[in-house]
């Protein structure tokens, strides 16, 4: 865990572990929460096993669906743990995903009030961040930096 690159979420969800697992593994349920409304999610593949595919599309108008996530499960421990990455796509091809390469690890354990649900998302090394900054600030965007600085200076810390 690197606090500059990674994030963790810990939550007690007031539902049994089986319900949480099913929300992750049943495509029709997965589609209900994966992408924020009003966008619609279409689950092309949700093959929850090591090496299996996780492919989702999203639509803003319900007609045209555009690629959203094309990822690969690395580890699947039944009802306990799911690990997937977008650095390898569903065909096991190495990719350079935007905006940030990541590996997400989801764990669920029983809790007196339901399910202890934890997420760790590990992001790429600082090169990934540099890439992000390049996208943001290179050619044509150079002035963004100056503007951000200007805003920060005139209105306090950004």
């Amino acid at each position, binding site marked *: 865990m690197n606090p*500059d*690159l990674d*994030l963790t*979420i810990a*939550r007690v*969800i*007031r*539902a*049994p572990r089986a*319900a*949480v697992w*099913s*929300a*992750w593994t049943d495509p029709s*349920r997965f589609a*209900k*929460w*994966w*992408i*924020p409304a009003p*966008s619609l999610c279409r689950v092309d593949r949700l093959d929850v096993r090591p090496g299996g595919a996780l492919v989702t599309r*999203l639509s803003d108008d319900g007609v045209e669906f*555009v*690629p*959203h*996530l094309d990822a690969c499960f690395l580890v699947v421990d039944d009802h306990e743990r799911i690990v997937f990455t*977008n650095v390898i796509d569903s065909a096991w091809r190495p990719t350079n*995903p*935007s*905006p*940030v390469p*990541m590996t*997400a690890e989801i764990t669920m354990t029983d809790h007196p009030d339901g399910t202890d*649900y934890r*997420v760790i*998302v590990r*992001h790429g090394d600082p090169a990934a*961040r540099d890439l*992000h900054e390049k996208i*943001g600030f290179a050619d*044509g*965007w150079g*002035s*963004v930096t*100056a*503007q*951000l600085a*200007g*805003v920060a200076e*005139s*209105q306090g810390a*950004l």
Partner: protein
Amino acid sequence: MAQYSAQLDGVFVALADPTRRWVIRRLGHGPTSVGDLARELPMTLPSFMKHVQTLESNGLIHTTKSGRVRTCVLNRERLAVVDDWLAEQRRIWEERTDRLERLVTDQQEKQQ
């Protein structure tokens, strides 16, 4: 990820124009009326309004109308999308977890 990507796209679209960048910079000094902004630019008010709409629809500014005066205010949080990628990823995952939690707890209530 796409949500983030879409937001970022929107921010960059909005900033991909020198007039709109000028507006952002100008609003960095404080809220300003559309009329005052337009007066400093070599373009018609309708042309300028299109830029205002692009900035507003991509969330970079808010506008409020008081009488006949429409005032533009910079949305600093949106600009931060460009800057703070990790905070943005955290927000995406927090909200994603909120939705998952809502789905499975709703199911619980229905079953009980």
